[in-house]
């Protein structure tokens, strides 16, 4: 925060950094940020909930993001998402009950040449088939 001179304009940058450091944003963390940047807590919460990127709940050990952009969509992204949701017993946007995997759907990750694409723990998988995803899930020990 000092890098941004505690300026309220830097709220989004600060939230990015905080999430990077702590994994997710707790109410206490948001309150601290509000105090330090001299912003009303309502504004901090408002901004946090407005953007998809910020998460108020802890993330799972692994993360799977299925791209559901147009190119991936026509190439069968929904089937992939359903496979993951079924295997992890949670809907997109949530974390599996055992805390192993966070599942999400992305708008478009800009890898349309590789459709359908999935981001698995930060790595882009290209031309994914449901079997590939199942294999990955087996590998990390999802029942």
């Amino acid at each position: 925060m000092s890098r941004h001179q505690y300026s309220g304009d830097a709220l989004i940058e600060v939230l990015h950094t905080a999430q990077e450091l702590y994994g997710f944003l707790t109410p206490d963390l948001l309150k601290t940020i509000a105090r330090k940047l001299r912003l009303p807590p309502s504004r901090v919460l408002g901004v946090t909930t407005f953007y998809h990127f910020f998460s108020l709940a802890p993330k799972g050990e692994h993360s799977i993001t299925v791209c559901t952009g147009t190119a991936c969509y026509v190439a069968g992204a929904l089937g992939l998402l359903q496979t993951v949701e079924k295997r992890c017993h949670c809907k997109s946007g949530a974390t599996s009950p055992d805390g192993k995997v966070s599942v999400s759907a992305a708008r478009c990750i800009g890898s349309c040449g590789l459709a359908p694409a999935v981001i698995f723990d930060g790595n882009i998988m290209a031309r994914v088939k449901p079997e590939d995803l199942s294999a990955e899930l087996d590998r990390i020990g999802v029942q």
Partner: protein
Amino acid sequence: MTVEELEQRQTDELDRQRGLENRIYCCTAAGCISSGADRIRQALTDEVKAQGLEGKVEVCGTGCMGLCSRGPLVRTSKDNALYGNLEPSQAAAVVRGAAEDKEKLAPSRLDTSAPFFSKQKKVVLANSGVVDPEKLADYIAAGGYQALAKVITEMSSQEVIEEVKASGLRGRGGAGYPTGLKWELVARQPATPKYVVCNADEGDPGAFMDRSVLEGDPHRVLEGMAIAGYAVGAQQGYIYVRGEYGLAIQRLQTAIKQAERDKLLGNRVLESGFHFRVDLRIGAGAFVCGEETALIASIEGRRGQPRQRPPYPPEAGLWDKPTLINNVETYANIPAILNNGSESFSSVGTATSKGTKVFALAGKINNTGLIEVPMGTTLRTILFDIGGGVPGGKEFKAAQTGGPSGGCIPAEFLDLPVDYESLSKIGSIMGSGGLIVMDNTSCMVDVARFFMEFCMDESCGKCIPCRAGTVQMHDILNRITSGDATEHDMKLLEELAKLLREASLCGLGQTAPNPVMSTLRYFREEYEAHVRDHKCPAGHCSLNGKQGGAK
């Protein structure tokens, strides 16, 4: 660095590169990386060491080479060969490059005289796949920052604006506003300070042009922004880039650091009296932030909600100061215009749309990837000559341009020249350049529903037509694709589409009905089949017991 030193750096680097026996370029854009480009690059580097060729053969990474579907791509300078789908085990042969190696590599070698390459014209992407995006010297060797040097030493800001106006360059973000006029508007404002903003919040699904430019040639964008700063009288620039584009962010950060160290950005650019700083702002996953007033709100650290225009950002933008907002590709065109002159730029293209346009080809097409063609090229050339047509012997059905704000172009318009006017005439838009091909297994109603869902999720919720209208339209489309809709629903859908278009606050809501309108216009019989006969002609919808995604 002074202007003379810049020229010296260019000569030195060119001499060094000429001294090499071979330079092996590995495409390290996001597409090729996920196809294993890092492993290839490592294997090549190891092989150069193993064969004792250090200092003679150099392995370097580059930006997108275009043909993403054949990644990972590797090019060698010695015999200008391009290889696709390489495996690390082939690295030794590539490095040795003897006659028998070439024979062995022949199946992986791509024909660079094929239409995919020969029908393109590269201006914005001139350096993509040629320079190492992480090395400033490479960009300088390719003539980088010469335009900025020329502008600072030889031209007044008015002359720069006149040159950009004369080139006929129009905004590449989609709407096509003449760039020179926008610059003039900002330059004329008396208020200071002024800001230059680069919109790199490329949110359209199916578009990855800006990402590729930023990943492949970040310095070109910085140079374009600095020239814009000089022309309009701004000293601070911001690049607003999507949080999803990790590699682009990383390369931009490197590029900004390099440019500042060598005085190509920052205080006293090229030892002149011109100052220009560039900072990055990382988006946080909100599509609406691509709208300029929402983008401004987001840079200021607020919720990315648009506001009423006018006043337009050239009058009151960032912190209510005059602000120039252009798209990545627009800035990337600027150095070429000033280096080669406006006539050379405007000699390409059609009467009203000058220059070239970068497109991202995706969907049901053989050569997915990144291409750049002169404005006015027909869709047929783009999709069939360059794109290689629809795979699996299936039939071409429609091409979608402009993302959720655009429309679907049916086969009857394949011979239409692609420029701003022709596309809007048939109910689509140029958009930022995503081009998604659909074959006869894609259901057009489902596509419309997909885009409506997108707009519904991404609506910021500020104005009611968009917030409530997108939900209602999505509901109706859902009913149609599940076979529960009535004739009345069709009427209601069209009514809502009109309402959204006319009453929404910003571009997101105003253009949200476009995919519905254009599919209704060209594929009405598909809607009717869903409503009347409860059938999906493409066999794709849940109507046929196959929830989307089934191939």
